[in-house]
């Protein structure tokens, strides 16, 4: 028996998903309509970019980055992709394959960087060589290379696939620590300043579940497997905690994060500017830094001189981030 479930709130066709936070079920078509409207509202509310802007999308092969690229192209934006091969074993090989297929099938422009080939290191090696936790070495590398590619390519804005769950989890962590500097900077748009490109997160009003559903109904293949290094990290435990709250109180995550943006972030805006402080130019690469040599140049120096470290060697070290 495969009985049909309930109906779409909008058109009464068979529903494909229930979204308790909207107290509604939707068919594939109206799920997409909801996602389009939520992204458009985020772009509009925070003046993220216009169709005249050239957008560089940071793509990982996961659901969120491929979904946001797909949604931007569908909405008429000029969006190219940048993929960074992180050297995380089979996971990176698979991720890169999903990104290339996505771009090829749609005739989209994709730029790729490979940490090992282009910079002489990979994430496991960087973690071991610098003593950083792997997610920190990964994040530092990605931020720096996305920034540089955007500036070199003359892009107006870097877009990432951070969604409502990502931002709520980061906010949760920052709030648990009352980390005022980070709270002040946790905005969906960061303007171009001090040598950094503009950055925007158009998916802040959409959950991970909604983004995965977008990919499914749009026929987008993405890497479902979790990054083996990220497994068990603190960020994931925050998401699990927030999902436990969401199960009891649908809409709690959206209320937590979007309420922060509406009512708390304006109070912290001045602190964000003060926290930015004075920046120097890195004496090696010219990027903005608080010291003489930027953290990325120091990471490259140590990591490229280090013997390559297989991903298995850092799995047990990556349990707390």
């Amino acid at each position, binding site marked *: *028996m495969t009985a049909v*479930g309930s109906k779409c709130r909008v058109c009464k066709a068979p529903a494909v998903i229930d979204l308790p936070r909207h107290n509604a079920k939707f068919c594939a078509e109206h799920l997409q309509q909801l996602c389009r409207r939520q992204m458009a509202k985020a772009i509009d509310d925070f003046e993220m970019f216009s169709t005249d802007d050239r957008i560089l999308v940071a793509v990982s092969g*996961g659901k969120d980055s491929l979904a946001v690229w797909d949604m931007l192209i569908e909405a008429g934006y000029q969006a190219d992709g940048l993929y960074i091969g992180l050297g995380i074993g089979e996971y990176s090989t698979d991720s890169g394959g999903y990104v290339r297929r996505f771009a090829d099938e749609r005739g989209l422009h994709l730029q790729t960087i490979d940490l090992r080939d282009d910079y002489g290191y990979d994430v496991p090696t960087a973690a071991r060589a610098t003593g950083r936790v792997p*997610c920190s070495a990964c994040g530092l590398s990605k931020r720096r290379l996305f920034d540089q590619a955007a500036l070199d390519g003359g892009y107006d804005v870097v877009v990432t696939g951070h969604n409502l769950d990502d931002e709520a989890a980061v906010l949760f962590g920052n709030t648990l620590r009352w980390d005022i500097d980070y709270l002040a900077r946790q905005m969906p748009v960061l303007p171009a300043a001090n040598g950094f490109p503009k950055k925007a997160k158009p998916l802040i009003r959409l959950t991970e579940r909604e*983004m995965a559903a977008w990919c*499914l109904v749009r026929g987008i293949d993405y890497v479902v497997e979790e990054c083996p290094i*990220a497994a068990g*990290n603190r960020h994931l435990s925050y998401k699990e905690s927030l*999902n436990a709250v969401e*199960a009891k109180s649908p809409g709690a995550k959206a209320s937590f994060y979007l309420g922060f943006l509406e009512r708390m972030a304006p109070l912290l805006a001045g602190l964000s500017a003060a926290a930015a402080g004075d920046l120097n130019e890195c004496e090696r690469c010219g990027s903005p830094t608080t010291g003489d040599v930027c953290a990325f140049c120091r990471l490259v120096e140590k990591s490229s001189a280090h013997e390559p470290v297989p991903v298995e060697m850092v799995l047990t070290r990556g349990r707390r981030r």
Partner: protein
Amino acid sequence: MKVLLRNPRREVEFTGSRSVDRLLDELQLSREAHLVIRNGTLVPGDAVLGDDDQIEVRPVISGGAG
């Protein structure tokens, strides 16, 4: 019914029809963190899954930057 689970990838077998929500409860999986796909099509929580269905329970939580 055959149920494909991820992270790690494995397959388990269930006998007897049940709703999507009940399946997730039996697997002790969060509805907020999973989607259920029946014979290649996404289905909501009250959809009834039958013995002949091929089911995938897909986690949607990822570790960071999308």
